[in-house]
């Protein structure tokens, strides 16, 4: 059976070649009516496919457009609805303004002898005036 089977399954026997040729020939001599009906059937099938695709497009296009619009709105408006975190630079500059405008002395360094500056200011505004101030400039140099 093997040899015969293999030959028959590969389409190699005389019988198979003859039947194939005969059947193929019969398709080439189909009547005009049948060929016309087949062509019509083919066009109908393709038309139905196109109509189905159009229907799908019409059905889903509005939903797609709506989704795209919603996404665009989210992209545009979502960042502005969130509180913007204050950056370190902005925070720092605001702190500086506070420091500059407050009455508290700018520095509270314990190493600096603030009494000297108070004395110097008093001497400059006092009756001895500039002489004392000049003496003071060569006097104590702090701490």
């Amino acid at each position: 059976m093997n040899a015969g089977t293999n030959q028959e399954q590969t389409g190699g026997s005389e019988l198979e070649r003859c039947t194939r040729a005969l059947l193929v020939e019969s398709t080439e001599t189909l009547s005009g009516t049948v060929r016309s009906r087949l062509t019509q059937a083919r066009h109908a099938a393709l038309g139905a496919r196109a109509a189905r695709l159009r229907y799908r497009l019409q059905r889903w296009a509005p939903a797609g457009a709506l989704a795209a619009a919603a996404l665009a709105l989210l992209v545009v408006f979502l960042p502005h609805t969130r509180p913007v975190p204050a950056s370190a630079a902005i925070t720092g500059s605001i702190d500086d303004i506070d420091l500059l405008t407050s009455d508290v002395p700018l520095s509270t360094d314990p190493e600096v002898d603030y009494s000297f500056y108070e004395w110097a200011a008093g001497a400059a505004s006092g009756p001895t005036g500039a002489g004392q101030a000049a003496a003071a400039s060569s006097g104590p140099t702090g701490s």
Partner: protein
Amino acid sequence: MRETEDGARALEAFLASVERKAFRIAQIALRHEADALDVVQDAMLQLSTRYGSRPTEEWKPLFYRILENRIRDVQRRRSVRNRVMALMPWRGGDEDETADALAQAVDGGPTPGTELESTEMLTALQRALEALPNRQRQAFLLRNFEGLDVAETAAAMRCSEGSVKTHYFRAVQALRGKLGDFRT
């Protein structure tokens, strides 16, 4: 959009390439030209609308599977109708039934335009094919006439490749028994 147009063109080319063979296969199975045209149209329609987006290499087995299903549907309907009509004592007055009975007759006379069928060889082959069991005829026509390979035939017939080989072998044996030394 361009892709859709290309797909439509490919599908049209495919359908044009199989429609005549599909018609002959259906005609041999159903022995009725109008029914054969109907099942081919149904198969084309279903392939286009449901499976047109599948890869092109899947089209042929799918198309022939659909075609075989449609052929089987028609055969079942006929079988049921014949059984029902056999129970009716007044049967025989229906024009459709008369047409079907004529169509089902093995020697149904020449069908329009099929000149080659009048030749002895084609008639003999057609009779021999019609006499085959369905599965054997399917396997033989899909493999030998349509040129599907074993895997594609198995996909179209929804059976194993081994079954295809068996059906095909038996079909060839049966045809050889009926046709003898058949030469063109």
